[in-house]
């Protein structure tokens, strides 16, 4: 029964007006800018674009971005799932408060995150100073980047796994127990497979966010080419140096990544919905 949209089935005038407004808004804010960027990047020809994309500092920044993102995702998958598990299955004093605060990184401006991390882990701070004495610099280094990424993406895996865990029937686990399985086995062979789609969704969301993260990283990592410059900071640098052509190549690459991760996330969500139905 899908003719129920309005008192008459054919689209009325006001329906069409609303539809045009929607198209127009999305077109102006999303579609047109992307087309403009891609068109501008191709202006000099594909060869020039490729040359821009493959400049050594650009490639280095991309590699750094991806590697730090992957490390962060690996850590977040474990800590996020564990956190979701604890929040759903256990009760303890302060649980509600902690549950509410999980979303703090979502609400916090990225620049404030950056400042907070520098305040706590920077060279002049207690913790940072301590590590510095032993030659480890947290800030302005890879660990700093990963730390910032972990903070900013912390809620993704937790919030993706939580609702699935809540819905999950304990029956499966209890059945496995009666069949003689140990807790570890149950966890690995019953729980994790059921949670897999949601964990992957959380991972994909974290990864996508990490690729583009800017505000917190520019604080903690500075801007040293070939050392701590992630892709977004490289692009910013090129724009500020009045070299937009240099920025275009990497921007287009990041845009491509955005589209791909978006599709992957959609597929994952479709898959997890089908899982639920069975």
């Amino acid at each position, binding site marked *: 029964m899908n003719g129920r949209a309005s008192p008459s089935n054919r689209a009325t005038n006001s329906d069409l007006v609303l539809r045009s407004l929607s198209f127009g808004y999305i077109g102006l804010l999303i579609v047109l800018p992307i087309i*403009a960027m891609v068109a501008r990047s191709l202006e000099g020809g594909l060869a020039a674009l490729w040359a821009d994309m493959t400049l050594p500092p650009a490639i280095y920044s991309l590699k750094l971005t991806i590697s730090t993102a992957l490390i962060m995702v690996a850590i977040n998958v474990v800590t996020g799932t564990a956190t979701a598990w604890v929040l759903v299955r*256990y009760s303890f004093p302060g649980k509600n408060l902690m549950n509410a605060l999980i979303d703090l990184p979502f609400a916090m401006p990225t620049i404030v995150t950056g*400042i*907070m991390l520098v*305040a*706590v882990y920077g060279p002049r701070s207690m913790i940072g100073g301590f590590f510095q004495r032993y030659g480890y610099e947290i800030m302005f280094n890879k660990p700093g980047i990963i730390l910032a990424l972990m903070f900013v993406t912390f809620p993704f895996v937790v919030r993706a796994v939580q609702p699935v865990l809540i819905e999950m029937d304990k029956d499966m686990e209890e059945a496995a127990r009666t069949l003689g399985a140990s807790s570890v086995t149950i966890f690995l062979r019953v729980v994790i497979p059921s949670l897999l789609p949601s964990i992957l969704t959380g991972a994909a969301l974290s990864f996508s966010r990490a690729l*583009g993260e*800017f*505000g917190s990283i520019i604080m903690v990592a500075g801007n040293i080419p070939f050392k701590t410059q992630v892709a977004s900071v490289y692009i910013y640098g090129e724009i500020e140096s009045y070299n937009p052509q240099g920025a275009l190549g990497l921007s287009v690459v990041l845009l491509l990544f955005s589209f791909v991760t978006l599709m992957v996330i959609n597929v994952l969500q479709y898959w997890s919905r089908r899982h639920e139905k069975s």
Partner: protein
Amino acid sequence: MKRADIVKTLLLVLVTGWFLVLIMVPVFGIMQEAIKFGLANVLSSLMTPHARHAFLLTFWITVAAVVINSIFGIILAVVLVKQNFKGKLFIEGLLDLPFAVSPVVAGFMFIILFGPQGLIGSWFEGQGIKIIYALPGMIIATLFVTLPFVAREVMPVLRESGLEQEEAAYVLGASRWQAFWRVTLPSVKWGLIYGVTLTVARAIGEFGAVIVVSGNIINRTQTVPLHIHQEFTDFNYGGAYSAALLLAVISFTLLITLQTIYRRTDRV
């Protein structure tokens, strides 16, 4: 069974420990820095001319983003839920794009499109209107990053109860506008409020897209996040921490608001 208890306690300690270290320590760190700076200094650094200008700018941009994206967010929600047309799924997919795009790339896209040499920008340039490196550009960038919130929060609520109630209103004699205003809109009230709160949080804190699009001109195009960045790079750490603390407090308040609303949405 004792072993299970040990495992459970261990897990609990590890998880809460991780949470405290990762999330709470930085939050306390900034409070500590602000206290070290001294309350009087915090307040006076928030009253400087460029701080005040930044607050004003952030305020107006946020208001614009909330108003425009609420209106268009509701329109998008209504169109995507009630109408059927070719390309509907495509539009829905595009709605998520602002979440996936890096803010710097977003800002860059708008410079290309609305800058003096851009397709749209060049026409405005001819009229003497500056979009990029000026307020309009900053508003547009903020609209982009906050676009999905209202639409995405209103859509599920509309899907669930909105349609049948609307038909009931029609049969009782209401015109389309009356039905929308008196029945549809109130029925999505909480979804709308939740979406607006998310929009405010994001608009206040947006950094990457705005710094690129605005040109970061002191006293002209610096919002509060940009102001914080400026203070920090000028080594005015006290000023930076003060403004950061303020934003942190506001974000925290918004977070609590969201949590309270979230529990309400189940009831209505």
